[in-house]
């Protein structure tokens, strides 16, 4: 396969489409499965055109059963295939929760490395799109709590492209959380290039500094990276220089990149849509207090969802981390 590259302006959703296309082209064992992903191209059109190009055996409209999708993906993977499953919405992954946590995550471990199940599970997640119940949730911590699963979430079209390719190439199961509220955001994407090498740490293992700064570190991933960047912009206008770290991976967590930043800034604010209680921010706060104790000027702040079910759409902007709430948390950290 050619390793030539081209650069295009693409939406986030389209960048994933192109990443999937590249994976289907470079690996004839790669396949896609999910509800409405074929003819319709998925409810978000992420797989638009792929069934036409790769056929019904490689882009499969499955029966309406998430446990069935993931369970059969495990079987296909045991037989040498690399299934990429689409879960239609975050709230509908739970019928598959058993297969993911009791089977998918543990197959390598319990076979002492003899078996490999390189399944990718794509989950559009997060809120802010005015949807009805079960269509706006952020269940990533539930999966990150399970050893054996890699859990990642891109924040830019380029990362979406690079990370979905790396996810398909990964020998481990990957939970690929797509911030659906960002699907229509656009960016320059360099397409092509070599298939990511699973052996070397890359986009699935490392955080990225999305904006450099000196006074405070904002840690975000997926949908809240854009919120953090906007907050950094607002803070800059007030004379505060915020660094934004985009985690990209939640499991594994790139603690060194976060710690290096916080040691410089002395302050850390974590931003995610999922509830703060026992969430990713709690883990980061613990790691930061471990690694940066003598550099900290203030306790780690969290701006996150509440310990309540995701609310009705009319109230979701009260629930979701907003620029105002991030700025407020930074103020608290600065005035501590």
């Amino acid at each position, binding site marked *: 396969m050619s390793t030539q590259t081209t650069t295009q302006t693409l939406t986030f959703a389209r960048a994933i489409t192109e990443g999937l296309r590249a994976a289907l082209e470079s690996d004839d064992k790669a396949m896609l499965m999910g*509800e*409405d992903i*074929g*003819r*319709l*191209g998925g*409810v978000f059109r992420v797989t638009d055109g792929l069934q036409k190009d790769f*056929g*019904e*055996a490689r882009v*499969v*409209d*499955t*029966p*309406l*059963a998430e*446990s*069935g999708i993931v369970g059969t993906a495990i079987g296909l993977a045991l037989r040498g295939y690399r299934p990429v499953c689409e879960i239609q919405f975050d*709230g*509908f992954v*739970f*019928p598959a929760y058993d297969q993911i946590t009791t089977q998918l995550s543990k197959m390598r471990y319990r076979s002492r490395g003899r078996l490999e199940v390189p399944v990718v599970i794509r989950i559009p997640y997060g809120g802010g799109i*005015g*949807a*009805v*119940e*079960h*269509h706006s949730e952020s269940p990533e911590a539930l999966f990150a709590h399970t050893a054996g699963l890699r859990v990642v979430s891109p924040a830019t079209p380029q990362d979406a492209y690079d990370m979905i390719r790396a996810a398909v190439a990964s020998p481990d199961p990957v939970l690929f959380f797509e911030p659906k509220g960002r699907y229509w955001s656009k960016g320059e994407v360099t397409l092509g290039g070599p298939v990511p090498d699973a052996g070397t740490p890359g986009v699935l293992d490392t955080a990225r500094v999305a904006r450099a700064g000196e006074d405070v570190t904002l840690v975000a991933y997926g949908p809240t990276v854009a919120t953090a960047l*906007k907050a950094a912009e*607002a803070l800059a206008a007030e004379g505060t220089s915020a660094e934004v770290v985009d985690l990209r991976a939640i499991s594994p967590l790139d603690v060194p990149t976060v710690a290096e930043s916080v040691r410089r800034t002395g302050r850390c604010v974590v931003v995610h849509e999922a509830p703060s*209680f026992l969430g990713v921010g709690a883990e980061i706060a613990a790691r930061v207090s471990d690694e940066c104790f003598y550099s900290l000027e203030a306790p780690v702040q969290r701006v996150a969802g*509440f*310990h*309540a*079910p995701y*609310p*009705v*759409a*009319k*109230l979701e*902007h*009260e*629930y979701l981390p*907003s*620029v*105002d*709430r991030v*700025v*407020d948390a930074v103020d608290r950290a600065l005035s501590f």
Partner: protein
Amino acid sequence: MKIDATGGSDVAPADVTPLVQLVAPDGSRVVGPDDAALRERVAHLTTDDLRAMYRDMVLTRRFDDEATSLQRQGELALYAQSRGQEAAQVGSARALAGQDYVFPSYREHGVLHVRGVDPVDRLRLYRGEDHGGWDPNEHNVHLYTLVIGSHALHATGYAMGIQRDGLVGTGDAARDAAVVTYFGDGATSQGDVNEALVFAAVNNAPVVFFCQNNQWAISEPTTKQSRVPIYRRGEGFGIPSVRVDGNDVLACYAVTAEALERAHSGGGPTFIEAYTYRMGAHTTSDDPSRYRDLAEEEQWRRRDPVERLEALLRAEGGWDEAWAAELEAEAEAYGERLRDGVRALGAPAAETIFDHVYATDHAQVAAERAWFREYESATAGEEVAR
């Protein structure tokens, strides 16, 4: 049999399965060799009864039209039409007794209409201002469930409760109770629905599984879910099963009445496949032209359930122009009340986010509520940078 790897087998669900039908598309009564018992079940229905069913169907369709345009105007976040399925919903719901309980999915607007759930309340969920919208115990109608198939198990468990309450087979029609659960063709693939059939069967639970096979699960035709006609799924679990013409309100009424009689008297569950058609899009977010033919839509338009009942009324002298005009005016007024009612719904107070998470105090919720209250009052009136 041969199976290829393209997601289909060469055995398509046969469309040749006989349907229970009591009224043909042209409005004439169907008299089959072995449907005397079912015909008996509708024999008592008077012209007024038929008109009442017609009214239910017309108002349900009006509800659909109004809700769809409210969504277009930005008053609703989303809406899922029941268009084309009015006979299945009204016919089955009209067979229910007051003490029976309904577990709907999310498209059963005709059922809710018959049960008396307030039309404005029915749209609260779709407006994004409530996750439910009505008091389930007021009309014995559980809330809509959006996770496909989950509620089939709840319905079965509820029916097991009715058994334990001794309200099956009492012989007293005013006391015997049962449950009806509604779900789609796509839902029959879910584990939960299959487990519900298992539990209902082994417990002989008084529950009716009413599957509206509207031919589509979003973009996937029924052939992606099953290689046999859907009703035969029920048979596989040892549950008496029947396929009924879902666009024939009398046939739907009759088979549901029969199933309820079985449930009430201790005969256990029944699986009904109402063979019908989703005439509209899956929801207001969907574009069916991407995956289905206009010819198919046209073919089903000719089997419109509302028109069929009109044809029956006309054929049997039950149609009256003055009455029809009155109904039209009623539908007009109904639509106006619905529009006004929905527009008048505000947003709930922000702090309700923290209400009803638990029955009693919970430290995390309490702390977050306190923080939220303080944050809201401190930032009230400040410019929103979001």
